[in-house]
């Protein structure tokens, strides 16, 4: 099975959690941080990341701030109050999902 399809459903909580930890990040930084943390195991494609960021921003979970960096404008994302609440829920749901998955896998092996 394609690894990226396994991670696909977890992308939103991953991004939310990263923003919770780092306070504010820009798109490229998110892709590189995930790559670094997972030692290249998970590589978020730009085609998946930006639509997600724009959707979360439109839902009011993220707020964006433009800032001049080097010789270009950079868009930083951070969590709104609603985004912080959503992160808690999303991480909780992800943990339940992982536990369920672990039970299922354990059941299959025994």
């Amino acid at each position, binding site marked *: 099975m394609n690894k990226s399809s396994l991670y696909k459903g977890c992308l939103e909580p991953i991004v939310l959690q990263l923003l919770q930890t780092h306070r504010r990040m820009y798109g490229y930084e998110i892709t590189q941080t995930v790559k670094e943390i997972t030692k290249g195991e998970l590589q978020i494609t730009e*085609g998946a990341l930006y639509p997600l960021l724009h959707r979360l921003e439109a839902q009011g979970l993220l707020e964006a701030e433009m800032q001049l960096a080097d010789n270009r404008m950079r868009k930083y994302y951070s969590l709104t109050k609603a985004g912080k609440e959503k992160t808690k829920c999303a991480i909780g749901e992800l943990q339940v999902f992982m536990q369920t998955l672990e039970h299922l896998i354990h059941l299959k092996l025994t």
Partner: protein
Amino acid sequence: MLTKEQIDYLFDFCKAQGVKYYDVQVELVDHLANAIEKELAQHSDWSFQKALDVVFASFGYVNFKPLVREKQKAIQAYCWRLWGAFFKEQLRRPAMWAVFGLFLLGYRILSMRYQDLSFNICITSGILIVFVLFAGNYRLKGLEKRKGKSFLVTNPTGLLALLAYLNIAIGYAKLRIPGHVTWLNIFLAGTLNFAYFLLCVAYYRTVKQVEKEVKRDYPDIFKLT
């Protein structure tokens, strides 16, 4: 660090790949520039163009149009949300209910004068829609024209389409109301027009909010205004 010429080239590259909106270009250019800088640091023998080709290939797109479409959907959703919020907020304002009263009174006066309720109502809502749509569009298009940049966020076409559709639908509903004037007819027509009036005002406030956000988010473009 990339030079200003290379950054300008990336803006042109984005345009050539189907991104005409500045608010989408800015983010893509920064992403491309970061990735290119990393590639050039790792492969000192690579040219800028080769690094750009490699980075662009990693997006997995033939061009950037799918990304623009996705952002367009998100922006539309955001504008709907703003519009809905402004509409609800107005329903809580006592001043708006005073306006409703004025609407009813206005219709009563008009119908006494012309004895043709449907005609008067259609004229009133027609003037409203023309005024609001033109004022909103003028505001946003003027903003783009002054700065020579196009913004995706200032093109909430879905809202305009719904307003236009509602005007036709409400106009049709009002024409079904019998021509003779009774207080019930006036109330029905007034309520329809009032709801539509609120939607138009909410649309205009959405436009104003979008304009404010664009000015706040892109100080490099709007620093002189």
